[in-house]
C-alpha cells in the first residue's frame, strides 16, 4: 500500500487536473520545441548525408572531350583510383504537350502540381543524363523509384524532384529538342531518385535519364563527357585529391582529349549543403532559444507551484516531517511532472521533427529514414524534462523545507526578515507594500487598478513570464524581419535589373542586328545585344572554380544598375577589367580589388584584373566585363549571344507576351533562339530558393508563439489559484462575476502588451543578427536590414489575443471562486 505522503503527491497531481495539465504542458511545450527543432536538425543532416553517401559520390569530376569505355577502364586501373564512371549530360530543352492540352482545358492534369506561372508553349531546360550501364553504376548511384528501369529505348526516366516542376506524370509524352535542333517525342517510362539532384525549381531545369541508344537517336554520340572518380583511401586532403586529379588528367590528355574543367567538391559535402546550412544554423540558434525559453517557463511554473505548497510544507513539518522528507515529496512531485511531460512531448517532438524533416526531404530530395529519436536529442529532452524542473525546484524546495513551520504557515513576514528565501519572497507580499504604487489618479476603474497592481505583485514570476513572452515575441518579430530583409535584399539586388526579358541564341549574331530586329517587335522599347559567357577561375594553386556567369553588357548600358561595394564599375575603354560580385567572393574569398584573376573561357585561359566588387547583382556568382574587349577576346567582334530588351508596359504578363512575340519574330527572320526568360520569371525562381528558409522561419515563429501562450496561461492560472482567497474576499465584499473576470483578463492583457513592447525592442537587434548571419551564409553579404513593422503589429495582435485567451480559463475559474472557498483555503 502506498504511504500517505506518496498518496498526497498522487492526489495533488490527480486532484488538481487543471494545474497538473498546465505544469505538464509548460514543460512539455519546451521539450516539444527542442525535440522538434534539434530532432529535425539531426535527422536532416543524417538523412542528407546517408542518402548522399549511399550514392557513392565522386571525389572529383573531370569535364572533357567525348570518351569511351576504353579510357574509362584505363582510368579505373590507375593507382589511387578506387572507382570511376563516365556519364553524358546532354543539355536540351523540352515542352510538355500534356500540359499544353491541360492548359487548353481538355485533359485533366491529375494531382501533379503544375507551375501555373509557366507558359506551356515555352521551351524549358532539361538535362538528359546517360550512364554507361544503368544496372552497374559505380559512382553517383541513382535508384529506380517507379516504372521502368533501366531507361528503355526512346523513352525517358525523370528524376523525382523534377516531376512537379516539369508538370509530367508517368506515361506522359514530352517533346525534347536537342541542341542540334532535332526534336523527339519521349514517353516518361518511370521515375528515379538521384539524391545528388535538388528541386528542379531551384535549378531552373529538369533532370532526366536516357539510354545511350536514345542518345544516338538524337543524333548525338554514344560517348561520355564527364569522368567521375572516387579516390582510394579515406579522409584525403584537398592537395592529395589535386594530385590524383593531375594523374587522371594526364591519362586523359595522353589519349589526345582536351580537359575542360576539373571539379573537386568539398569531400562528403552534399551539393545542397549551401541551401541547408543557413536553415540548420537558424535551427541551431532557435533550438538554443527554445531551450532558454522553456527553461524560463519551467522555472516559473515550478516556483509558482511550490509557492502554493509552502503552507502545506509547514503543516507537514509541524506534524513531524523532516526537511529531507519534504524535499523528497516535492522532488518526487517535480519528477512526476517531468516524466508526464516527457511522455507527452517526446513522441510529439519526434513526430514534429519527422514532419519537418519530411518537408526538408521533399525540398532537398532525400529520403527520411524511420522515426528515430537521436540520443543527443533525447538527452536534451530529458534534461529539459527532468533536470531543468528539478534544478528550478531545488532552491525553492530547499529553502521552503528549511524555514520554520511558522514561517511557512503564517501570512506574516514571509516577504521579510533576515531569513528571506526565494520561496518565501515569491509567496507572500502582504507585509510589503507593492513598489508599484499609483499615487496619481489614473483614469482607470477600480477593477482595472486592481489588475494593474496584481500584475506587479509577483515580481519574480512576472519577470519570468515576461522573459518568456518577450523572447517569444522578439523571435517572432525578428523572424518576420529576416523575411522582409530577404525580400528587401532581393529587391535591391533586382534593382540591378532594368530590363524585362532575355532571349538567348543558339549561335552568335551581330549586336546591332539583334537590337534592330528586337525593336521591330511591338511592346519592345529598348534592346541591346550582350555577351553571356561561362567562365571558371583558375586559382593560383591550379584548381578551378565552379562555372561562373560572365556578362558583357554594352558599354554604358542603361539596362542594368549595379551597386558597387568596392572599387568601380566597368568604363567604356576598359580592357581586361573585371567586376566581381559578392556571391563570387563568397566562393573565392582571396580576391580583392586590384587582384589579378585568371579565367578559363571556352577552354582558353585569359588574364584579368579585378577593378570592383558589386553587391547589387542577382544573387549568383557573376562577373561583369567590358563588351568591346570581351568580343575581341573571343574572336567575335561586334557579335552577341543574347538580346536584352525593355518592354512597355513592364508587368509580368506584358513582359511574357513581348518576350514570346520577340522569339517568334526572331525565328521568323531566321535567328535561332535557344531560350527566353523574363526578369519576373528569373526573380520568382531566385526567391523560390529562399522560400524554404522563410516558410521554415514562420513555422518556428508560430511554435514559439505557442510556447509563450502556454507559458502565459500557466502563469495566469497559477496567479489565480494562488489568489483564490483574495478573490473570495473580493466576492464577499460584492465583486460580481464580471468584474472578477475582468480583473484577470486585464492583467493578462497587460502582461501581453508589456511583453510586446520589450519584445519589439529586442526584436530589432535580434532580427539584425539573424539576417546578417543568414545573409553572410547565403550571399556573403549582410542583407539590407528591414525591421518588420507588419511582424511587430502582428505580434501585438497575437500577443493580445494570446494573453486574453490565456487568461480566459483562469478568469473563468476565478469568477467561480465562492466565499466558501476562502474558508477552505485558510
Amino acid at each position, binding site marked *: 500500500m502506498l504511504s500517505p*505522503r506518496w498518496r*498526497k503527491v498522487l492526489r495533488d497531481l490527480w486532484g488538481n487536473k487543471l494545474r497538473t495539465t498546465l505544469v505538464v504542458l509548460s514543460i512539455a511545450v519546451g521539450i516539444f520545441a527542442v525535440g522538434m527543432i534539434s530532432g529535425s536538425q539531426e535527422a536532416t543532416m543524417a538523412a542528407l548525408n546517408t542518402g548522399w553517401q549511399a550514392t557513392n559520390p565522386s571525389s572529383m569530376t573531370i569535364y572533357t572531350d567525348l570518351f569511351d569505355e576504353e579510357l574509362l577502364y584505363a582510368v579505373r586501373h590507375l593507382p589511387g583510383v578506387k572507382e570511376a564512371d563516365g556519364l553524358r549530360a546532354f543539355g536540351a530543352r523540352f515542352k510538355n504537350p500534356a500540359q499544353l492540352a491541360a492548359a487548353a482545358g481538355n485533359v485533366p492534369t491529375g494531382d501533379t502540381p503544375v507551375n501555373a506561372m509557366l507558359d506551356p508553349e515555352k521551351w524549358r531546360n532539361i538535362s538528359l543524363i546517360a550512364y554507361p550501364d544503368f544496372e552497374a553504376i559505380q559512382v553517383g548511384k541513382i535508384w529506380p523509384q517507379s516504372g521502368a528501369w533501366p531507361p528503355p529505348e526512346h523513352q525517358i526516366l525523370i528524376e523525382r524532384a523534377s516531376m512537379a516542376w516539369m508538370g509530367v506524370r508517368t506515361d506522359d509524352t514530352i517533346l525534347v529538342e536537342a541542341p542540334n535542333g532535332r526534336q523527339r517525342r519521349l514517353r516518361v517510362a518511370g521515375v528515379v531518385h538521384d539524391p545528388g539532384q535538388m528541386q528542379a525549381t531551384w535549378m531552373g531545369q529538369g533532370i532526366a535519364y536516357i539510354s545511350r541508344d536514345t542518345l544516338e537517336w538524337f543524333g548525338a554520340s554514344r560517348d561520355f563527357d564527364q569522368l567521375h572518380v572516387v579516390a582510394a583511401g579515406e579522409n584525403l586532403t584537398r592537395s592529395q585529391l589535386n594530385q590524383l586529379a593531375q594523374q587522371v588528367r594526364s591519362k586523359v590528355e595522353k589519349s589526345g582529349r582536351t580537359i575542360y574543367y576539373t571539379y573537386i567538391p568539398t569531400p562528403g559535402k552534399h551539393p545542397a549543403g549551401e541551401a541547408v546550412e543557413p536553415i540548420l544554423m537558424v535551427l541551431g540558434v532557435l533550438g538554443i532559444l527554445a531551450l532558454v525559453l522553456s527553461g524560463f517557463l519551467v522555472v516559473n511554473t515550478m516556483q509558482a507551484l511550490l509557492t502554493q505548497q509552502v503552507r502545506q510544507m509547514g503543516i507537514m*513539518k509541524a*506534524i*513531524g516531517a523532516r526537511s529531507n522528507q519534504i524535499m523528497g515529496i516535492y522532488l518526487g512531485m517535480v519528477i512526476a511532472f517531468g516524466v508526464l511531460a516527457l511522455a507527452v512531448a517526446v513522441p510529439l517532438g519526434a513526430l514534429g521533427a519527422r514532419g519537418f524533416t519530411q518537408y526538408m526531404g521533399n525540398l532537398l530530395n532525400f529520403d527520411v529514414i524511420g522515426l528515430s529519436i537521436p540520443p543527443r536529442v533525447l538527452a536534451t529532452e530529458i534534461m529539459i524534462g527532468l533536470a531543468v524542473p528539478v534544478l528550478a525546484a531545488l532552491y525553492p524546495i530547499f529553502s521552503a523545507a528549511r524555514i520554520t513551520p511558522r514561517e511557512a504557515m503564517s501570512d506574516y513576514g514571509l516577504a*521579510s526578515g533576515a531569513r528571506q528565501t526565494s520561496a518565501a519572497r515569491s509567496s507572500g507580499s502582504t*507585509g*510589503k507594500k507593492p513598489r508599484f504604487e499609483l499615487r496619481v489618479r489614473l483614469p482607470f476603474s477600480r477593477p482595472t487598478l486592481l489588475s494593474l497592481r496584481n500584475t506587479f505583485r509577483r515580481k519574480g514570476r512576472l519577470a519570468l513570464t515576461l522573459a518568456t513572452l518577450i523572447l517569444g515575441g522578439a523571435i517572432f518579430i525578428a523572424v518576420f524581419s529576416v523575411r522582409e530583409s530577404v525580400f528587401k535584399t532581393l529587391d535591391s539586388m533586382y534593382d540591378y535589373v532594368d530590363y524585362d526579358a532575355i532571349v538567348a541564341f543558339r549561335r552568335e549574331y551581330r549586336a546591332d542586328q539583334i537590337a534592330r530586329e528586337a525593336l521591330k517587335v511591338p511592346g519592345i522599347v529598348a534592346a541591346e545585344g550582350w555577351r553571356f559567357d561561362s567562365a571558371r577561375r583558375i586559382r593560383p594553386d591550379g584548381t578551378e572554380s565552379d562555372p561562373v556567369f560572365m556578362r558583357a553588357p554594352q558599354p554604358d548600358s542603361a539596362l542594368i544598375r549595379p551597386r558597387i561595394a568596392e572599387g568601380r564599375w566597368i568604363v567604356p575603354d576598359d580592357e581586361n577589367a573585371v567586376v566581381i560580385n559578392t556571391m563570387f567572393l563568397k566562393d573565392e574569398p582571396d580576391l580583392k580589388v586590384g587582384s589579378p584573376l585568371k579565367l578559363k573561357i571556352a577552354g582558353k585561359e585569359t588574364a584579368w584584373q579585378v577593378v570592383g566588387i558589386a553587391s547589387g547583382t542577382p544573387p549568383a556568382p557573376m562577373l561583369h566585363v567590358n563588351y568591346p574587349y570581351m568580343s575581341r577576346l573571343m574572336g567575335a567582334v561586334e557579335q552577341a549571344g543574347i538580346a536584352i530588351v525593355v518592354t512597355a508596359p513592364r508587368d509580368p504578363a506584358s513582359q511574357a507576351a513581348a518576350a514570346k512575340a520577340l522569339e517568334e519574330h526572331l525565328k521568323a527572320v531566321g535567328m535561332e533562339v535557344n531560350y527566353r526568360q523574363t526578369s519576373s520569371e528569373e526573380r520568382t525562381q531566385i526567391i523560390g530558393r529562399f522560400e524554404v528558409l522563410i516558410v521554415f522561419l514562420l513555422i518556428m515563429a508560430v511554435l514559439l508563439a505557442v510556447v509563450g501562450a502556454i507559458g502565459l496561461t500557466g502563469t495566469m492560472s497559477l496567479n489565480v489559484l494562488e489568489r483564490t482567497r483574495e478573490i473570495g474576499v473580493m466576492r464577499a465584499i460584492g465583486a460580481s462575476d464580471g468584474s472578477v473576470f475582468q480583473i484577470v483578463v486585464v492583467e493578462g492583457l497587460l502582461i501581453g502588451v508589456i511583453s510586446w513592447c520589450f519584445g519589439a525592442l529586442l526584436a530589432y537587434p535580434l532580427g539584425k543578427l539573424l539576417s546578417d548571419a543568414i545573409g553572410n551564409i547565403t550571399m556573403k553579404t549582410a542583407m539590407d536590414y528591414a525591421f518588420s513593422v507588419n511582424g511587430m503589429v502582428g505580434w501585438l495582435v497575437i500577443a493580445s489575443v494570446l494573453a486574453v485567451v490565456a487568461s480566459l480559463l483562469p478568469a473563468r475559474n476565478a469568477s467561480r471562486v465562492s466565499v466558501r472557498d476562502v474558508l*477552505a483555503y485558510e
Partner: protein
Amino acid sequence: MFGSQLRKNGSSGAKTPSNGRYRNGNDHLIELHDVVKTYRSAAGEFTALKGIDLEVDGGEFVAVIGKSGSGKSTLVNMITGIDRLTSGEILVGDTAIQNLKEGKLAEWRGRNIGVIFQFFQLLPTLTAAENIMLPMDFCRMYSTRERRERAMHLLELVGVADQADKLPSTLSGGQQQRVAIARALANDPPILAADEPTGNLDSKTAESVFSLFETLVAQGKTILMVTHDRDLARRATRTVILSDGAVIEEYLAKTFPALTEAQLIEATRNLEPVKFLPGAVILQQGAAPDKFFIITRGRVEVVLPEANGQEIVATTMVKGQYFGEVELRRGGHNIATIRADPVLGVEVAAFERAEFESLLAASTAVHDAIDRTVSERIAENEAARSRLERNHA
C-alpha cells in the same frame, strides 16, 4: 535556616548544575528559561516574548490566556519548535529544543508533541484517516498495517470514525478539529499543544473538544492550550497569563486585581519563586518578618503554638492566598508559624519588603485592600487566640 530549603529558579536556573529528573537538569517536563523572541520584519523589530520563564509538569492542563497580540501563539510555537527562539532556553523532557536542527526538530516534534491549530490545517488532498497516518509515516512509527488500524482507533476516540475516508473539505469545522486532534495523537506524544483549538468552533462544539482534552489529561497527557475563553481556561489545572510578551503570575493578578497589567508584569518580574518541601517552616512565630508571600502552588498550614508546647493547625491557605502582610504592615514579630503542607509542599512567590511596599504605593486600591485583609487577619487571629485560651481554660 531557610537557605537549605530554598531553590531559586532565577534566569540562570538550568545552568546551575542540578540533579533534576531530566537529562538537561530540568525537574519539570517543560521548562522555559528567559525565552526571548524577536520578529524581524521590513517594518522593524518586534519583541513578542520578553524573557519568559515557565515550568509545566507532566499531566498538567495549562491554559495560556491573554489579549490578542500578547504573544500566546508565539509562546506555544516556541515550545513546539514550530518557530525558533531568539535567546533563552527551552527544555522539553530530555530535549533542549533550541539546539536541534530543523530536520531533527521536526522529527522530535512528530514523536513528542501533537500540534493542533486553530484552522485545523488538515492536508486538503488526504482523507481524514490518511491525515492521521501521515505523522506515523513521517516518523516511521508503527508498521504500515498498524497505521490504518491506529488511525481508525483514534478517529473513534475523537468520535468521528464514520468520517474516516472523507476529504477534509467535506467535514464540518468541529469534525475537522477532531480529526486534527486525532492526528496530533497519531504518534502517541506525551504533550499536546493547541493554539486556540476552539477559536473557530461554536460554543457547543468547543465544549465537546474541551471535554476531549480533559479526558486526555486524565489519561496522563500534558496539554498546553491557548484560548480566548476565560470560562474554559478556568477549567484547566493551571492558567498562564500573557501580557505584552511577559507572563503574569496568575495569583498575583488574583491577589491584586486592582494592579494595571504593567504593574503586574513589573511585580511578576520582582517576585521570587520559592519552593518549600513538605512540612518546611516558612515563617516562624516570633521571628522578625522580612518577606511577603503569595501561594502559587500547593498549600500552607497556619500553625499556632499551644500552651502545652503542642501546636495546632489553625487554618490552611491555598494557592492565591498570601501571608506575611500583617507583620510587614504592622511591624513586630510573626504572629503565627506558617509551614508547607506536610504532603504537597508549597511554592510561593516571595517579595522583599521594599518590593511589597512599592506595590502598595503603586495603587491606593491595593493599599486599601491589603490593609483590609490585615485588619481581618488580626481580628481572626485574636479570635483564634481567645478561642484557644478559652479552650485551655
